[in-house]
């Protein structure tokens, strides 16, 4: 496997060479498997979609009120996240809905308000927008507007998001920025199978409505030994994956793995020690961990696939500068998708790939 630097090479934008070289598409990273806490017991080799299935299996087994529904979930789902569940738990608990996102989410909110554990699937995050009114105006405000009389906390909505290499405009979007703007809901994005199962179970058990976005490119490419029993990981808590002293790298979902390589390259090419943080929860985000890290390193780079303006990185950057101002050695940098619709062509130039992040680190160090 060629080294990353050789693979990307000098990023050459000459269109003719582009068509000759057939650059590989999509986020470029190598997935680093992690291992689960031994105390969680027996494990089984699972990729990310199997980890999701396992979490849903645990939920349906232990919670008689739990139902799972969405478009095409009965046969297993277009990403195979619900394979076998209908056969095991019956078609009145695992069922298909018609093609109506607003209807699906509205229906799910109602079901959750009535007290049932509801896991609704939106087939692609790009399709969630017809349901945005239900999420913004119903789900997020239920508890507040009823003075805690009612709530739809037993609702979890799952959707795949993110670049996949060939998704183009409507199968690659990262909508977490829109949801970060809604007080009352929680937004969670896992980086791998062990994280996925624990965070999904946490969302399902969480007393507030949760929006769980799965990076679709990791469904197959991320494989780990995942505990077969149920376990939860904390919502609202970021995780420091690599400790470092010079620059804090912040990301979530797929971008965490890109940043892992960036950290490695920064060390080997620039001699810079990076600290890597996976946010895991977008809303409410873990301020403590982030500020502690940036106050230590003094430099902060935030990277996400979603477009730059108004992306979640903007919130992080504003908060970091507010709380760590006197410790900052350089302005907070964000490397993000361009302010354009997610493109059909030149996807690998659009994404915040290693070279763009490394260039930003050079700017931070040399400020």
């Amino acid at each position, binding site marked *: 496997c060629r080294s990353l630097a050789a693979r990307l090479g000098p*990023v050459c*934008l*000459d*269109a*003719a060479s*582009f*068509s000759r070289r057939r650059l590989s*598409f999509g986020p470029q990273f190598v997935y680093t498997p992690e291992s689960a806490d031994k105390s969680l017991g027996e494990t089984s080799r699972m990729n990310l979609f199997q980890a999701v299935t396992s979490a849903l299996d645990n939920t349906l087994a232990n919670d008689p009120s739990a139902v799972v529904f969405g*478009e*095409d979930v009965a*046969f297993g789902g*277009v990403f195979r996240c619900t394979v076998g569940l209908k056969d095991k738990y019956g078609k009145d608990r695992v069922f*298909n809905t*018609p*093609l*109506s996102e*607003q*209807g699906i989410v509205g229906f799910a909110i109602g079901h959750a308000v009535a007290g049932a554990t509801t896991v609704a699937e939106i087939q692609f995050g*790009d*399709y969630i*927008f*017809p349901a945005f009114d239900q999420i913004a105006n119903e789900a997020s405000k239920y508890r507040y507007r009823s003075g805690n009389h009612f709530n739809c906390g037993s609702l979890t909505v799952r959707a795949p998001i993110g670049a996949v*290499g*060939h*998704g*183009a*405009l*409507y*199968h690659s979007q990262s909508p977490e920025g829109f949801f970060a703007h809604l007080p009352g809901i929680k937004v969670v994005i896992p980086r791998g199978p062990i994280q996925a199962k624990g965070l999904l179970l946490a969302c399902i058990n969480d007393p507030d409505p949760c929006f769980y976005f799965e990076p679709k490119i990791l469904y197959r490419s991320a494989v780990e030994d995942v505990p077969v029993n149920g376990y939860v990981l904390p919502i609202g808590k970021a995780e420091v994956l690599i400790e470092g002293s010079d620059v804090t790298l912040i990301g979530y979902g797929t971008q965490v793995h890109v940043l892992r390589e960036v950290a490695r390259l920064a060390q080997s090419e620039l001699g810079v020690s990076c600290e890597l943080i996976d946010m895991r929860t977008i809303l409410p985000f873990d301020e403590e961990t982030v500020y502690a890290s940036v106050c230590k390193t003094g430099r902060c780079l935030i990277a996400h696939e979603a*477009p*730059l*303006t108004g992306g979640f990185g903007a919130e992080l950057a504003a908060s970091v500068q507010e709380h760590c101002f006197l410790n900052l050695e350089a302005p907070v940098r964000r*490397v*993000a*998708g*361009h*302010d*354009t*619709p997610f*493109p*059909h*062509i*030149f996807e690998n*130039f*659009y994404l915040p790939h290693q*070279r*763009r992040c490394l*260039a930003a680190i050079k700017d931070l160090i040399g400020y």
Partner: protein
Amino acid sequence: MFAVIACGRLVQTDFQQVDANKFTLTIPAADKVNHLVFFLTGQCPLPDGAAAAVYLGWPQPPPSPPEPVWSFIGHLTNEKPSAIFKIARTRPQDHDPNHPFLANHFATGSWTDLTCVQVGISIEPVQTVAGMTPPAGTQADSTPTMVAFSQRMLESLVNYLSSFATTPPGAAESYVPMSAVTSSSAIRANLLLLRGGGGLFVSSRLASSAVLSTRPYKLHKLESGPASEAQVTSDEARKYYRDMATVRRMETAAGNLYKEKAIRGFCHLYSGQEACCVGMEAVLDRNDPVITAYRAHGWTYTRGVPVKAVLSELTGRASGCAKGKGGSMHMYNHNFYGGNGIVGAQVPLGAGIAFAQKYREDKRVCVTLYGDGAANQGQVFEAFNMAKLWDLPCIFVCENNKYGMGTAVERAAASTAYYTRGDYIPGLWVDAMDVITVREATRFAKDWCLSGKGPILLEMETYRYHGHSMSDPGTSYRTREEVQSMRQMRDPIASFRQTLLTAELVAEEELKEIDQSVRKEVDEAVQAAKTNAVPDPKELYTNVYSQPPSGQPNYRIRGIDQFTWSAN
């Protein structure tokens, strides 16, 4: 051991052995079949001294019992392993009570279908078979000897040419112009005669137009429906055939390009649904706007985008109709508003376009297409309400191909009568596997809208042969047999071809030439799509807004960096 071919269809070898020496097979839609070819496949020869007697069993219409009326039509032997039989005249007027197959009962569902015919083959001693005589009119003429052949050729040539004879003013006798003699159509017409196989084509000239019947419609809140017959000229027939054949070939080419990974991402093929776009375009003109969903390649072509531009858009080349920036689901042209990825989102847009037409008093209709899956989207009903409230000239068209991705319509919709789901909007159900049926329905709908009666809803019941997209094999939620039987029995192109040949509107040679020229066009387009230039890198960030904000001459799209704009 045996095989049978009906004209224009795939060979059938699915004989069932019902007795020690008897085999049967069902031929569907045999009312359209004139000839059957039987042959020994050569897998194992007939036993010595035996012949295979071939019987046809036509079902009888009720109130007669459903047993077939069998008649002997001929035989095969090892020495004569193949034969052609004309079957058009073997239908239930003949009745032979003494044949081997009456003793068997065939409990197949095909007996309710009077257009199916059962074929029976019974292996019997040669002597028995030799004594049986088939009914008149079942034997195809055997190949004439050279003398007879030449005689017929000359006779038909004289016949043909004399039809061009004219008497110039002042002349004593008639003359035939040299152009009639030297034109290739003269030769073609003669070849057509000789290959007619015994008088099937009686005339020496093809018809210039014919009256074809349309398939039945279903009406919702309409007093009357479209015409049951339509005049079709041979030019129109050629055009429809050519357009459908081009769409079919183009989609096949797109599928192959996808498998070669020259196309990536999402690719939704239209194969099987060609009659819908071609039939509708026959009545629309380029000033009637059209908007559809993501299964858009067929519509893109009929809206005037050449095959080359469609395929180049799929491969992301600069020569694509959206400069390579849209891909499969976002193809556009004048008065063709795409190509839309989000299911159902195009329907309110269509209502809005129709409003613009009405506002400008344009006397145009807007055709807004959506699928059976989208029919359950809330925004579709919002669009219906606005269209009816404001009498918009909008033809809503539900292309019902029976499956929303992998979900059959019965499992997604409380009411699958999509043509009635406009409720207060009148609706028409159309058998959209026949291009003329679609055409007349569209004519009716366009007249309806333009006479100020407001919107109308057409349900085009059609079928897609491929899966939902190239990532879906299309066989996990429906049987291969279902797909095969649609291809064999209801293919829009094959059945239109048959209709044209039977009505003598277009010669078979011409159809072949059309097929060849379509193939050539698509092959060239595939080459271009694979080799044309990719877009300029700055297309990554152009066309976000109409132009950069004023007062910022050095404006750059946010988020990009020196990697992206160093090319400038």
